[in-house]
């Protein structure tokens, strides 16, 4: 019996732990010594002009694609609406925090409206190597093939999350499954690959021994980085029920173990 169980364990382990996929994240900036934004939180401000009605919801989802990473040491949130114009933003004369703009005339900002749903631009790097500026441009040109108002919501969230990655300092990846791969045409859902986790951790490594909140931080209420109504966290709602269900489960395990011992003695 023991050898059979050992073989099963080894086989199961091998099946589970197959070779890791290969990947290759890169960084934007003047060199590989880029440091990312010098802050524990970063607010994105949307200028709502020309934007779809659900742009705030999509932005929240896109920010959460990165926020969900346990090794990320920066909190991304959506701040109050911005009144900065795209002209001022691209000229570098607006506030230092990233702004998001829905542009009705993509050609005016030098972009092809038929293929570009969104782009990150204007990133600046301080003398200390930290990013300190960035503009996220979304295509809202009427009649254009890549107008975000005509695209599937999942694709728009994917594009926004990808461009947020550029604002944060990530370049493109050679991994075709990565969020930071240049081509989103096959994507059906916004999710991160191991390569994206490594890239963003490289720039914003979480340190729970040196300043970041322990165990991921306090979030018993499932809030969103937005004005969306907070919802109770199901994990903590179910926790008080454990005293009722765990003893039953443990008793079942114990009786199964005793039954097995009786059978092997017989």
């Amino acid at each position, binding site marked *: 019996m023991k050898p059979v169980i050992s073989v099963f364990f080894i086989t199961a382990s091998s099946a589970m732990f197959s070779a890791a996929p290969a990947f290759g994240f890169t960084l934007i900036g003047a060199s590989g010594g880029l440091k990312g934004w010098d802050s524990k939180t970063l607010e994105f401000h949307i200028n709502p002009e020309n934007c779809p009605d659900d742009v705030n919801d999509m932005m929240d989802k896109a920010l959460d694609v990165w926020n969900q990473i346990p*090794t990320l040491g920066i909190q991304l949130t959506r701040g109050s609406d911005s009144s900065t114009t795209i002209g001022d933003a691209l000229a570098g004369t607006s506030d230092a925090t990233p702004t998001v703009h829905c542009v009705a005339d993509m050609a005016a900002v030098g972009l092809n409206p038929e293929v570009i749903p969104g782009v990150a631009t204007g990133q600046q790097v301080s003398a200390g190597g930290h990013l300190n500026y960035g503009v996220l441009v979304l295509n809202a040109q009427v009649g254009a093939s890549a107008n975000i108002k005509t695209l599937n919501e999942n694709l728009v969230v994917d594009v926004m999350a990808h461009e947020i990655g550029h604002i944060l300092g990530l370049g493109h990846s050679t991994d075709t499954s990565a969020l930071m791969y240049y081509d989103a045409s096959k994507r059906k859902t916004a999710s991160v690959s191991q390569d994206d986790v490594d890239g963003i951790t490289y720039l914003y490594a979480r340190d729970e021994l040196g300043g970041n909140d322990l165990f991921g931080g*306090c*979030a018993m209420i499932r809030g969103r980085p937005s004005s969306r109504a907070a919802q109770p966290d199901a994990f903590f709602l179910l926790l008080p029920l454990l005293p009722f269900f765990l003893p039953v489960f443990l008793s079942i395990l114990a009786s199964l173990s005793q039954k097995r011992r009786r059978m092997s003695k017989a």
Partner: protein
Amino acid sequence: MQHSKIALVMGLSCAFFGSGRSALGARPKSIEFGAGGTSYEMLRLTSSPSGKRNTLGTSFYHFHLQYHLPVGRRLISPWLHYMPDSLSSVQSTSKSSQTSLMAAGLPMTTNLSGRFDFGTGPVLLQYSIKGTGNGAEALNNGEGTATFYQPEKTVSATTFAWQVGSAWNWSSLRTGADVLIHAPLSSTKRSFSLMLTAAWVKS
């Protein structure tokens, strides 16, 4: 507020402990050495161009070292998982970076029945990314190419997780299966890894 949450989680875990020790369970003052693997961030990561999430996460392999210290009728069982960089299983295609995962845990172990142990406790994880700095590379950006830069330094993220798991004791072999709960107090960041180990036990 933060410390009271941690105390609450730990207290609730301890309240569910079984009978303590048994002659067939983990032996006090025993040391074990072996190997294992961690399926990191299950149901969270994708390895598909469609973005569909995998059931299993990224595989990290490690050497395993553990000691069982008797505390009353239970055991405190500190463990360490380590893999040298040269043997690390996760590397980028461009050889521009290498990732490794080291972990140390401090679970309380109790015997549930016969050879079956249960353990739970905090885990400290160090997730390291080592850039090899191969310089700039030109990559497709949809309308041509753009220049991007490969990472060139080593960075480590240090986080705490919570371990819940079980082990089966053979005569001189012990096999374990544990779930690591990353960022257990954060509804946004919370995720799970599965850890399997097999070790030779010396009393």
